[in-house]
């Protein structure tokens, strides 16, 4: 079943957030028309490209299954919106008005009261930065994310993942679905606004709260920039991360004792500091730095794989740090059937990820073929004319 089967989405957005949101709606059955300007979505020109193609791999993943149109005298944005259920855009109301679409931020939207309008900006719909350019990197810096990587004395690092863009894309799918649920009752659509900065601040709610008015100093949860980079615990080969009892509760200690006994880590069992601050010396506890060297001296005798297995055996949590390509190839990820093969335009196939959740009833579709720039302009124009 495809919950969005009769839903038409018009996407006028570039890069990642809007296109990712429309992709997931497409997976759920929606018909997505991607509106592009003369040079096309900038993501088309990003590196790396698909083999034997000029299309960027990221563009393919985020735009597979969509149709691409360029606006001309036969196909206006206003006409597209008249026939749509959902409009996802990163353009301001002023930019849209210049294209002949008036009142996109009015309630109701007079030209099509049923239209759900999802508006994505860098910095928010109000305020002094409203019209400023932004980016994934700029959003991470402004939301304070870069302070939790690297150290004070070295050049800043960003999170390698595009967390602001993908995070906003996910929130935008929520916004669309919630507005469609409301529409099913009220019969009218509405405007919803989101921004990259807003999304990143929402996704750090735990840290906002931790810094509000803390009773006690709790290390990296309160600071961040003054702590050394977190690279896990060294072993005989790859570093691992581990914790007993998560970050809370004393229930992890019996497992920790058994783990140390089986591994022969007698020095840890005999060190009185582990009695006193042991609970906070694994995971991301405040005393991790104080005792890390003690662990690592013992861990050097084992491989990451051996240690992870031993820790899990004694009810601890552990994983070795692996690259995403190894994570995708791991039997666990394979068991979830995350990666699928879909056709590309030139007859080749491309591996992509499926919808990130599974349902007992809904069957997300994994469509192939990302459109060439403006490929569907004429067919869509003919459809609109009816």
């Amino acid at each position, binding site marked *: 079943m495809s919950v969005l089967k009769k839903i038409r989405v018009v996407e006028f957005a570039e890069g990642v957030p809007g296109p990712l949101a429309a992709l997931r709606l497409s997976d759920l059955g929606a018909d997505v028309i991607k509106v592009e300007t003369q040079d096309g979505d900038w993501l088309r020109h990003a590196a790396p490209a698909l083999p034997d193609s000029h299309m960027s791999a990221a563009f393919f993943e985020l735009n597979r299954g969509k149709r691409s149109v360029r606006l001309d005298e036969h196909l206006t944005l206003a006409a597209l919106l008249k026939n749509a259920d959902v409009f996802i855009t990163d353009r301001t109301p002023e930019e849209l008005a210049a294209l002949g679409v008036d009142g996109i931020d009015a309630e109701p939207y007079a030209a099509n009261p049923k239209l759900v309008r999802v508006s994505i900006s860098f910095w928010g719909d109000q305020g002094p930065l409203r019209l400023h350019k*932004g980016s994934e990197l700029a959003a991470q810096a402004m939301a304070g994310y870069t302070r939790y990587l690297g150290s004070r004395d070295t050049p800043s*690092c960003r999170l*390698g993942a595009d967390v602001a863009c993908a995070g906003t894309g996910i929130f935008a799918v929520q916004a669309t679905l919630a507005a469609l649920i409301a529409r099913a009752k009220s019969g009218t659509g*509405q405007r919803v606004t989101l921004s990259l900065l807003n999304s990143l601040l929402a996704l750090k*709610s735990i840290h906002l709260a931790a810094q509000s008015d803390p009773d006690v100093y709790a290390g990296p949860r309160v600071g961040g920039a003054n702590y050394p*980079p977190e690279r896990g615990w060294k072993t005989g080969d790859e570093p691992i991360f581990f*914790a007993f009892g998560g970050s809370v509760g004393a229930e992890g200690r019996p497992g920790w004792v058994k783990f140390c006994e089986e591994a022969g880590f007698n020095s840890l069992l005999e060190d009185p500091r582990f009695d006193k601050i042991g609970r906070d010396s694994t995971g991301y506890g405040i005393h991790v730095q104080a005792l890390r060297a003690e662990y690592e001296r013992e861990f050097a005798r084992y491989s990451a794989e051996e240690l992870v297995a031993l820790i899990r055996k004694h009810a601890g949590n552990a994983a070795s740090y*692996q690259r995403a390509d190894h994570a995708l190839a791991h039997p666990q990820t394979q068991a979830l059937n995350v990666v699928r093969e879909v056709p590309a335009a030139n007859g080749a196939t491309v591996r992509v990820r499926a919808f990130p959740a599974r349902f*007992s009833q809904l069957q997300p579709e994994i469509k192939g073929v990302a459109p060439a720039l403006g490929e569907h302009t004429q067919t869509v124009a003919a459809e609109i004319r009816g």
Partner: protein
Amino acid sequence: MRVMDVSIMAAGPWTAALLGMLGAEVIKVEPPAGDGTRWVAPTQKGMGTNYMSMNVNKKDIVLDFKKAEDRATALELAATCDVFVQNFRVGVIERLGLDYESLRKVNPDIVYCAISGFGEVGPLAKAGCADYIMQAYSGFARLNGAPGETLEAFRFTGFLDLTTASVATEAVLAALLERAMGGSGQKVEVSMLEAALEIQATRIAEYLGGGLIPAPRGSESPGIVPDRAFATLDDEVFVTAHNDAEFAGFCRALERPQLAADPRFLSNRLRVEHREALFAEVAPVFKARPALWWQRVMQREGVACTQAFRFETFRHHQQVVMNEMIANVATRDWGTVSVAGLPWHFAQTPCGVFEAPRPGADTAAVLADLAARKSGVRA
């Protein structure tokens, strides 16, 4: 809309909180020992700030699932709800009799959201998980750090938990829409693993489609150039040009317009190929003037350019305040706490952020309402 939330820690609770922010009535069910986040440091006036941020917009009742009587009450309560959220380790929920099959029998319309670490099938289905575990496992941490380093975890716990909650909310809303269109209830399965891969969407696409092995790149990204931090006369600036037009603006702002016509830098793909040559040209230019200047001229040319902020500098920033990106919630017992504002702003649907409940505060009222529903009288 009524949501029953028997989850603990972050990924499950924030799913229910997001549904609460969208206007649902959320009933959090805590064990007598309490959700562990109540004690995670730091506390504020004795209550875990983690608990306060993850449980906004909820009522709170205490049930002891070790007692058959309370398990029966839980099942009765679930029969009155539209959504059920749980993040027990795979296998535990069946023992409690609160698995999907059991709930479906009493409430076929329920949307049942099961959140796990690694998914419900496969060799690690029963393995425990937490934010840093998934940062390590999913490749998220190995994308971070200075070039040439192997990895650096995000020293900022809970990011992947909240990402998982966000994906879970997306999936629950899809199932609720299906129901609103006349479908039945269903089970929704969300794993931290798949959520962690979703937040890495672009980097994984670059690997799957383009063969690019994921690696730490400092402040740079693999796909576009320029997109990185530059040292200035004082503070660093973070600058991005997404396309050729923005790159031309970047060159004008640097007073080096000729760079835009340099054959090495004519297109994004060429700039990616010659990124070191470009940085060698522009880094000394940035270094000669302060961050304030570069922000002014880049903005004038339509190019993204900002400085890094921190809690103390962004919390009162007019942009954050005017868009209500942070909610400063006054609580009865714990003072005012800053938590996530609404991630979406609806023109019509009323949404809001309300203080987390005192543990067990609503047990009597919710159970009385349940008894009244059973006897056919709405309380």
